[in-house]
C-alpha cells in the first residue's frame, strides 16, 4: 500500500537492524540525503548498504559508515578523494566490501526487480572480480554468472510524484532510482513535489506507483 508521510522520520521508521538497504544516487545527484539522515537518526544498525559509492565527505552515507552502522557495502566505486570514513573502516577491517562492476551492479539490481534468477555477462570475465564465480562461453565469449541483488528497503530521490505514487526524475539524478524501486520490498521516496493523480502524463512516467510504498516531500 502507498502512503504519503509528512516527515522523513516517519518514512524510515520501519527499517530494522540487519536490513539490506539500497540507496539511490551517483555522486550527489539523486542521493536522498534527507532520508539517509533520517536513517541515521532512527538508529537501525548492522545494515548492508547497496549504493554506487561508499559515501563522500562527512555527510549522509559516509556518516552512517563512520558511526559503524554499516556492516557491509555492495558498490562499484568506494574509493574517492573524500571517502575517508569508508577507507578508515575498511583498513581497520570493520566493514565488509562486495565490489561489483557498475554495470553488473545495475543489472543485478534490475534482475531482482524483474524476477530473473541469475544471468551471464561478459563483464568481469577473466578478472579478479570473477574469481570463484561460474563461467561459461556463450555467443563465443567468456561470461560470468551473476545473481540478483534484492533489498528490504530502497531509499531514493525523485523529482515529482502523483497521487498514485508514479514518479518522474530529473536529468542524471534518475540513475539508480527506478531499478532500486523495483528491487526492494519496500521503497521510500523523497520528492521535490507532489501533484494530484492525473497530473503526470502517462507517457512520461519512469517509475509506476506499483513500485512505491512511501513518499515524503522534502523542501
Amino acid at each position, binding site marked *: *500500500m*502507498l502512503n504519503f508521510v509528512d516527515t522523513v522520520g516517519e518514512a524510515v521508521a520501519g527499517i530494522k537492524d540487519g536490513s539490506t538497504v539500497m540507496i539511490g544516487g551517483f555522486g550527489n545527484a539523486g542521493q536522498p540525503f534527507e532520508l539517509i539522515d533520517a536513517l541515521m537518526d532512527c538508529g537501525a544498525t548492522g545494515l548492508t548498504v547497496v549504493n554506487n559509492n561508499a559515501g563522500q565527505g562527512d555527510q549522509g552515507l559516509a556518516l552512517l559508515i563512520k558511526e559503524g552502522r554499516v556492516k557491509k557495502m555492495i558498490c562499484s566505486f568506494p574509493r574517492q578523494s573524500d571517502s575517508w570514513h569508508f577507507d578508515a573502516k575498511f583498513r581497520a577491517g570493520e566493514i565488509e566490501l562486495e565490489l561489483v562492476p557498475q554495470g553488473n551492479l545495475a543489472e543485478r539490481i534490475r534482475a*531482482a*526487480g*524483474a*524476477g*530473473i534468477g541469475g544471468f551471464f555477462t561478459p563483464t568481469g570475465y577473466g578478472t579478479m572480480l570473477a574469481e570463484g564465480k561460474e563461467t561459461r562461453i556463450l555467443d563465443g565469449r567468456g561470461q560470468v554468472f551473476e545473481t540478483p541483488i534484492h533489498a528490504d528497503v530502497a531509499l531514493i530521490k525523485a523529482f515529482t510524484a*502523483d*497521487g*498514485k505514487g*508514479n514518479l518522474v526524475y530529473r536529468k542524471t539524478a534518475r540513475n539508480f532510482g527506478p531499478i532500486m524501486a*523495483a528491487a526492494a520490498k519496500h521503497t521510500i521516496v523523497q520528492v521535490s513535489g507532489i501533484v494530484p*493523480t*492525473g497530473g503526470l502524463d*502517462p*507517457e512520461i*512516467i519512469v517509475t*509506476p*506507483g*506499483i*513500485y512505491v510504498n512511501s513518499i515524503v516531500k522534502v523542501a
Partner: protein
Amino acid sequence: MSVQSNDQTASPAGIRTSEKPLGRDDLARLVARDIKPGSFVNLGIGQPTLVSNYLEPEQDITLHTENGMLGMGPEATGDQIDGDLINAGKIPVTELPGASYFHHADSFAIMRGGHLDICVLGAFQVSATGDLANWHTGAPDAIPAVGGAMDLATGAKDVFVMMTLLTREGISKLVETCSYPLTGIGCVTRVYTDRAVFLTGPDGVEVRETFGCTLEELQDMVPVPLRAASAAGS
C-alpha cells in the same frame, strides 16, 4: 445469493452460501469483492475480465495489462476507441487518471518480478496442489499459443482461477494431476467456480464455500479429497 466480501471466511450459517450454482457474473462479482483494497491486479483475457465490471472505485484497484499499461480503465466505446490503446485481449480500452505506459520487457518485469498482488486466469484444469493447465489442450492437431499465461501464473503473488467446475461432459476440472500440458506448478491459490470456491496449496484442497450444493455433494463431483476451510484458512 449472498456473496462473501473482502476475503472473509464462510459464514457461521454454513459453508453453502448460495442456493444455486453461481452464474459468470455473480462469480465475477464475488472475485471482485475478494480483492483487497489498493491491490494491483491482472485479469488475463476472457472470462476473468468480467471482474473489472464489479470493482468498486473505493477499492482503488489498479489494473495491469501485459501489453504495457497500469491504470487500465473500462472497455472503450464510441469516440473513446483508439487503436493504440488496447488490452491483452486486443480489445480497445480506456485510460484512468494515474495510468502509466511502459514497454514489453518492463511490463513483464512487473509480472515476473512478483509485483502483482493478484492475477485472475481461466483454466482447463487445476490440480489439488495448485498446478495450472490453461494454455494447451495437448491435442495433436492443436496449434499452441501461450501468450503471457506462464508469466502471470509464475509471477503474481496470488493466482486466482475462474472456471466452471465441470466440463460440458460433466468431468471435474479440479483434478488430482493435470492431464493437459502445464502452465505452472503449484501456482494457483484459489479456484472460483460455479459450484464452490476452493483454496489450493501444498497441503491439498480446502473448500471455502459452496453454491447450490453441500460439501458432500461437491465431493461426489470432484476426484480429490476436500475439506472445509478453517476460519483462518481463507
